[in-house]
């Protein structure tokens, strides 16, 4: 499928620049060109497709669905699934949280959404496809959904309502199933397209510089780090690798799109996939800026429990992956 990109990279590196095959710099440059073109292409496709889905299925519909339908225990899974198709901006997490609990959606279900939505977002999926191929992407997406579902169920069990800030508690007591049906704007696809297109451009503009820098760093490492280099330090038998990788990942956020290409090279050089996926979930799914925003609706204790449970689930899934692969 991507042969033509290989040929293009071949042409630029060997024919246009006349670089000799087999040299570190040549290989690094070839890798950089190939990866950049392939990843940006896939990123564009995924962001655009998600934009279309979201245009027809906005967050208001998700809320109304979760708030009105009786789902008999499946609501955690549904919230998690909706999280996949809904783009998430951490600055919206507070209004989203309030809006959900106000609509009578249980706290645990809201958490399920809050976990999966940033974890499995269009940029992460696009990058995963480009960097790791569809199999690993599928595993990442499925485990992201499972992680949100299970974390949500655990958090619901803990009865955390008492740790909400006072004004949110007040909102909760007045909570009611919202009756107002979402009035979908009857727009044709042609009318929606300019908006979808503009959003795609906005999203890409924000991440592309990071991605390119990440691929460049990855390219350099790819050419200079010997195969199997990390196996010595981060082998599967090292039980601390997964938790350390996860804990390192939580404070990283804005540059998630730049970190993924680097992680891909680390995996190629011998870091176990489970450890790498745990690391990436920590980077993508949990962020300190989000925690700071949530302070408006949750006490520190609740934020701590929320992050703690999710971190724990990420670590466990990291171990599971390492056992499977």
């Amino acid at each position, binding site marked *: 499928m991507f042969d033509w990109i290989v040929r293009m990279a071949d042409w630029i590196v060997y024919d246009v620049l006349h670089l000799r095959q087999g040299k570190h710099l040549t290989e690094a440059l070839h890798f950089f060109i190939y990866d950049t073109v392939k990843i940006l292409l896939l990123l564009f496709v995924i962001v655009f497709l998600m934009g279309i889905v979201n245009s027809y299925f*906005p*967050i*208001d519909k998700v*809320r109304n669905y979760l708030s009105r339908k009786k789902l008999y225990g499946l609501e955690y899974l549904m919230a998690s699934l909706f999280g996949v198709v809904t783009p998430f*901006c*951490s*600055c*919206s997490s*507070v*209004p*989203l949280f*309030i*809006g*959900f609990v*106000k609509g009578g959606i249980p706290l645990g279900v809201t958490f399920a959404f809050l976990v999966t939505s940033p974890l499995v977002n269009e940029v992460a999926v696009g990058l995963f496809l480009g960097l790791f191929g569809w199999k690993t992407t599928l595993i990442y997406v499925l485990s992201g959904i499972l992680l949100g579902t299970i974390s949500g169920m655990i958090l619901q069990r803990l009865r955390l309502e008492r740790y909400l800030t006072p*004004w949110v508690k007040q*909102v909760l007591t007045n909570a009611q199933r919202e009756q107002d049906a979402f009035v979908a704007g009857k727009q044709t696809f042609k009318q929606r397209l300019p*908006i979808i297109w*503009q*959003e795609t451009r*906005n999203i890409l503009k924000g991440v592309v510089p990071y991605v390119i820098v990440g691929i460049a760093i990855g390219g350099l490492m790819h050419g200079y780090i010997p195969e199997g280099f990390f196996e010595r330090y981060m082998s599967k038998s090292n039980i601390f690798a997964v938790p350390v990788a996860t804990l390192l990942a939580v404070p990283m956020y804005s540059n998630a799109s730049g970190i993924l290409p680097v992680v891909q090279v680390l995996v190629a050089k011998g870091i176990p996939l489970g450890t790498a996926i745990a690391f990436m979930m920590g980077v993508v799914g949990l962020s300190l800026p989000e925690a700071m*925003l949530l302070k*408006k*609706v949750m006490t520190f204790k609740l934020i701590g429990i929320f992050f703690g449970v999710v971190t724990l689930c990420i670590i466990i899934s990291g171990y599971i992956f390492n056992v499977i692969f």
Partner: protein
Amino acid sequence: MSKVIKILGTGCPKCKQMTALVEEVVNENNIDAQVVKVEDIMDIMTYNVLTTPVLVIDENITVKGRVPGKQEILELIK
């Protein structure tokens, strides 16, 4: 009568971007409008929105969760 344009947002980059764009559009076209930034989350929630930033023109929610282009803003305000 001058229009009241409200921008709802807790101060994220997208909200600031939207405010700047709206102010530009208002100034460039000499539109008689008052631009108000609503940053308090409790005030924002009275509009029953789930995503920010939100563009409210004369108490009508027009755009939510994304930053519109200048042309779109102009058409909405007019």
